């Protein structure tokens, strides 16, 4: 291609182009700066003009009834098992009795976190109430100013404050505080923690071989698996599931506290408080004990090495076809295992064992009593219904009446109360397998028992256990009676800069730990290389990470 003549014209158009480009770039840069959201910083918030619909005498254990019909926008998580219906009884009841209706912004459960992050990150049309948020998930939104610092408004949440005080949750709430001393999430509260995950074993085989359904220690459980293997050499004694993100993450999560560490789902940021400072979980001797235990199971042929790689469906298929005789489960999944055997007409029976003790004793993880909760968008502080909204969320999510309503429904309509106070679900309604074969389901047809409105299954021990089948109630009570919790570690709130720095290190370290946990367990890497592995962690900025964290601890304490 030859250059054409007319250089003067070329130069002019080139200069024009450069000028336009500069202006465009400048405009682009300026759009990046938007007006910052100003957060209310103090108590003594001025509610004038923001009390429309609020009750003047709202307090502890008062039923909330809005003085005028109010509508709140709600970020709703659509669960495929109970798709939302506009005429659900819970919605009509809230409208009828509390004068509250919702403008529902729905997102599917499959990508709930991503949608939430996008909408809140974008900051446009953020719904007022953002449901289903787990402690830790709100941190990413704090800096952007899109969510409300709810700790400033505790005085207007009497039921919340009352439960925190009665159940001694102040230390746990402190864990939620960010670097500015405020917390941004209203968590679900639990009076008592609820263990859910354990091993499900073939009861018929265990009884046939005279094995106890309550092995005292993990070593005893390993011996049981050994006995089973000798009696049934063609089947895997144990073939596990839930390895989607990390190796047998559900199982090591419930096993780890008994070894004095945390792992799998509970691994979190990889920090363990050793009494004086935070150390890195993946490098501790206790974590090594845990890995060694499972590596031993695989080496002895007691655990199927595919547990770390197979789909849940494959693991269930093995158990259902008798190719494996124990599997990880929770109180819901065991129903599916049981119904499979019943439908097939076999004699197989399944039951959950109480999680055994380990070298560190009979332990449960620390905390666990602040769970799935919700956030409020920061613009609610400018809404005319602000006070009404605070009162409403306090009533629905934290008052005994609201919790019972969200879980059980309406007395006389969905359940009845027996003379001794126990609640009985109407026989035509099923939930959690309480009335198997009933034509309707409490969540599908009525909208109650829905994770968006029901916080933490009712929070109180009474409500929490009320819908559980007897075997689950026994399991929960036995576990909680037998085991004690690890002590709560001190809070370690980070600045935004630290958080960014740390998140890169955290991910790299955790990925390395999980990859190597897999390899150690499966036997690809011999445990003699443990020290080499620990030094590899050093190379991934482990010490720098710990320094930042321990610095944050001191800063928060002092």
């Amino acid at each position: 291609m030859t250059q054409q003549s007319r250089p003067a014209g070329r130069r002019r158009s080139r200069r024009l182009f450069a000028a336009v480009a500069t202006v465009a770039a400048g405009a682009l840069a300026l759009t990046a700066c938007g007006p910052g959201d100003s957060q209310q910083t103090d108590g003594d918030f001025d509610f004038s003009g923001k009390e429309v619909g609020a009750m003047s005498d709202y307090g502890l254990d008062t039923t909330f009834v809005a003085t005028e019909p109010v509508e709140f926008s709600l970020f709703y998580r659509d669960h495929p098992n109970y798709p939302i219906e506009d005429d659900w009884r819970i919605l009509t009841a809230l409208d009828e009795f509390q004068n509250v209706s919702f403008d529902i912004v729905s997102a599917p459960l499959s990508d709930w976190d991503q949608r939430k992050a996008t909408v809140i990150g974008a900051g446009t049309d953020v719904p007022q109430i953002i449901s289903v948020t787990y402690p830790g998930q709100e941190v990413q939104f704090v800096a952007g100013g899109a969510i409300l610092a709810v700790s400033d408004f505790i005085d207007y949440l009497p039921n919340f404050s009352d439960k925190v005080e009665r159940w001694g949750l102040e230390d746990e709430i402190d864990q939620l505080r960010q670097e500015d001393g405020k917390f941004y999430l209203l968590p679900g509260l639990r009076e008592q923690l609820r263990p859910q995950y354990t091993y499900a074993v073939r009861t018929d085989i265990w009884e046939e071989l005279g094995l106890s359904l309550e092995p005292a220690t993990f070593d005893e459980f390993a011996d049981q698996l050994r006995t089973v293997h000798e009696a049934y050499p063609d089947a895997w004694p144990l073939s596990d599931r839930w390895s989607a993100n990390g190796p047998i993450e559900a199982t090591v999560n419930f096993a780890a506290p008994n070894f004095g560490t945390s792992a799998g789902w509970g691994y979190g940021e990889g920090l363990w408080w050793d009494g004086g400072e935070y150390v890195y979980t993946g490098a501790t001797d206790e974590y090594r004990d845990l890995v060694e235990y499972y590596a031993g199971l695989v080496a002895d042929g007691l655990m199927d090495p595919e547990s770390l790689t197979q789909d849940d469906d494959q693991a269930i298929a093995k158990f259902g076809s008798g190719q494996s005789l124990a599997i990880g489960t929770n109180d819901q999944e065991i129903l599916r295992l049981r119904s499979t055997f019943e439908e097939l007409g076999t004699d197989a029976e399944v039951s959950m064992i109480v999680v055994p003790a380990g070298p560190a004793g009979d332990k449960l993880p620390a905390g666990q009593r602040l769970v799935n909760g919700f956030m409020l968008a920061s613009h609610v502080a400018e809404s005319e219904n602000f006070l009404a909204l605070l009162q409403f969320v306090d009533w629905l999510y934290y008052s005994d009446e609201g919790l019972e309503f969200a879980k059980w429904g309406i007395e006389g309509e969905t359940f009845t109360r027996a003379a001794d106070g126990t609640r009985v679900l109407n026989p035509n309604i099923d939930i959690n397998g309480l009335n198997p074969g009933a034509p309707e389901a409490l969540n599908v047809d009525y909208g109650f028992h829905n994770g968006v409105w029901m916080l933490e299954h009712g929070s109180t021990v009474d409500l929490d256990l009320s819908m559980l089948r007897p075997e689950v109630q026994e399991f929960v009570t036995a576990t909680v009676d037998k085991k004690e919790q690890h002590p709560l570690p001190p809070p370690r709130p980070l600045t935004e800069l630290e958080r960014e720095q740390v998140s890169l290190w955290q991910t790299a370290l955790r990925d390395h730990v999980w990859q190597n946990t897999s390899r150690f367990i499966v036997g690809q890497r011999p445990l003699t290389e443990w020290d080499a592995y620990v030094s590899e962690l050093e190379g991934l900025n482990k010490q720098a990470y710990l320094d930042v964290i321990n610095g944050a601890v001191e800063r928060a304490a002092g």
Partner: protein
Amino acid sequence: MVATNLNQGPDRVAARIFRPATVAGIKDSRSYTVFRAINGVLIIVICFVTLYPFLNIIAQSFSSEAYINSGQVNLVPRGFTVTTFQYVLGDSMFWRNYGNTVVYTVVATAIAMVLTTTFAYALSKRHLKGRTFFIGIAVFTMFFNGGIIPNYILISTLGMKNTIWAIVLPNAISIFNLLVMKAFFENFPEDLEEAAAIDGLTTYGILGRIVLPLSKAVIATMVLFYAVSFWNSWFTAFLYMDRSELYPVTVYLRNLIAGATAGDPSAAAAGEATQVAANIKAVTMLLITIPIISLYPFIQKYFVSGVMLGSVKQ
């Protein structure tokens, strides 16, 4: 112009591939026969391996859950039942979302085709001023985009959320398809267009009455590419639709499959990871893929020839 003897039509093509060894009096050598036999067996095995998961899904959709959970379902349904079909087909949300998918696909494909064809045709003219600039912009967007949050803010502030426009407009032009069409139009014989211009047709006339009717192959291919991609897309709908009755059926399916086996460990640990029954997943998958699969044999000839279209420059 790409000369492909596939234009002869499928029957003659098949006849040429499968012709007996003694056509035209020339016998194949023994080694060639052996080669063809082994080749045939290998291809049949590969076909079976590729088809097996699909047959497995079909079997699962007619089986009862207990048999699936005990791993007894392979190619043949066990515990034969059609209740799963009744259950899924009876879900009105499934049909509403299905209807949405059809509407979105048709509208999106139409808009995409109009935009891509006109853009490609314009770009194919070498005398277009700023041609390299426009091509540069187009290719630039293949590699870089604004990111999810800026896109979300843009679509939101334009007021397109919860409307069909949020799905059909943002990804209307696939640059890959654009470049293929551009190359095809570049190879289009100029003489035809010049002759038409001499006879008095305007540019639009040439495009509409000369070029497009002779470009059926590439248009059909692009329609197929776009239609399949819009049929399968779920991300834009998931991001911009606030109500479940606006979702396409792919979001419905994704929620069913990926939703209940939660990827979020804290959710899973809290016992929310209850699964949707395997047979319901299988039935839904089947119902969504069947239309595209039924359509494919009719468009196959365009697909096969279309992939190579625009690959040869004059």
